[in-house]
């Protein structure tokens, strides 16, 4: 079972790959839209890439609620357990 930090680090790599945000900036308290400047289409790409990376399903209606990096990490932890 991956730790919270491991999930955050893997997610940070995805955010960096998709949106060019430095991986170190992708911290739990950061908002994707407001702090990291991730636009809506990039967010969709990040969700899809996270589904593949963590072998989880993130339905569109759930994805809407993932405002911060911490929201996404917590969702992935719950979905993978």
């Amino acid at each position, binding site marked *: 079972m991956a730790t919270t930090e491991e999930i955050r680090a893997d997610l940070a790599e995805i955010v960096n790959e*998709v*949106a*060019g945000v430095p991986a170190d900036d992708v911290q739990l308290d950061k908002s994707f839209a407001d702090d990291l400047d991730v636009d809506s*289409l990039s967010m*969709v*790409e990040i969700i*899809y890439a996270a*589904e*593949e990376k963590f072998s989880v399903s993130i339905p569109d209606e759930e994805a809407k609620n993932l405002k911060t990096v911490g929201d996404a990490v917590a969702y992935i932890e719950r979905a993978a357990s």
Partner: protein
Amino acid sequence: MMRKTIVVTGLGATTPLGGDVASTWAGMLAGRSGVSAIEADWAAALPVRIAGQAAVEPDAVLQRVEARRLDRSAQFAVVAAMQAWQDAGFGLREENVVDRARLGVAIATGIGGLQTLLGQWDIQKEKGVRRVSPLVIPMLMTNAPAANVGIRLGAEAGVHTPVSACASSNESLALATDMIRLDRADVVVAGGTEAVIHPLPMNAFAQMQAVSRRNDEPERASRPWDVDRDGFVLGEGAAIFVLETLEHAKARGARIYGELAGAGMTADAHDMVQPNPTGVTQARAMTRALAESELTPADIVHVNAHATSTPQGDVTEAEAIRMALGDHTAVIVTGTKSMTGHLLGGAGALESMATLLALRHRTVPPTINLDNPEPQLGIDIATKVRSLPDGDLAGINNSFGFGGHNVAVAFTNRYGSGAD
């Protein structure tokens, strides 16, 4: 209203001969072929395994995140447009002093974002519906290269994508001319791009018997007017112009390559893939370009021909050139697709660039591989580098497209200034 004079103040290109204008032009003057064997595994099963592949990969130039949001056709367009923009002396973003409301874009592609379309369809079939990128539509749209360039430059006077197969980017130069002469814009970034070296179109062109099968001699495969020609060679890349009124260029002290004097467009209304064999409609495109340019046949010293290396097309065009320009021997004709391959929607702009540079440097690049010319063509074809005379010079570039589109663009070396 006085007819506006339009000058070329910036050029950009990424082609099978080089990643910029200087290397592409040097390759042409050296008579170098940019055609090579495709080494990728997918080519092995195809009847045609050669192409004019871009000398410099666009993702080696673009930022990684920028590149992954663009189809390869738009990548080439952005690379070439940014070169042209900086070559014209315009700054980027806050340093851009051009009036955005007077800046337009006309960038063509013949086919559009085909690699994105087919690549994402493969992903949907193989990995499922959730794996398809949300960027597919804005990446594959035919207008995506023009729109991406327009957004980067802040062009608000209209952003357009003429589509007329292999005549597309000469049509974009013609449209840019109209935009300026109708006073819709002072500056237009215009040209074309193409990126369809992919197994489906490679095979489809082979299936229609349109492309050369000289797989064992790639650099000898594109051979306009040679008796042993057996079809065109697919190429990829982009070429982009910065065009502006003479007045606008002079006011900012811009270096000027020469003049885009005018364009002429006709349609064959004859057949989807074969030219009207009389050459009448092709000739009329050249005649109209002369009229719009206030030039006469006697002014023309050079033609960069469409000359794709197909059996029918090369002969028809020779006839059309004689019809439009007369039998005088002062016209030196060349076919630079012999070196670059055929960039489809990028071809007109690339060869228009070669036409303009030939006038500016009084030097015509050769047609390579013309070992045994078709008899009785009645045109003077450069098979080595040839010099043009002193004084004011004018030339024409022809582009003809499937569907019967004929677009001729006329250039002069007038108003030329500065160094390249």
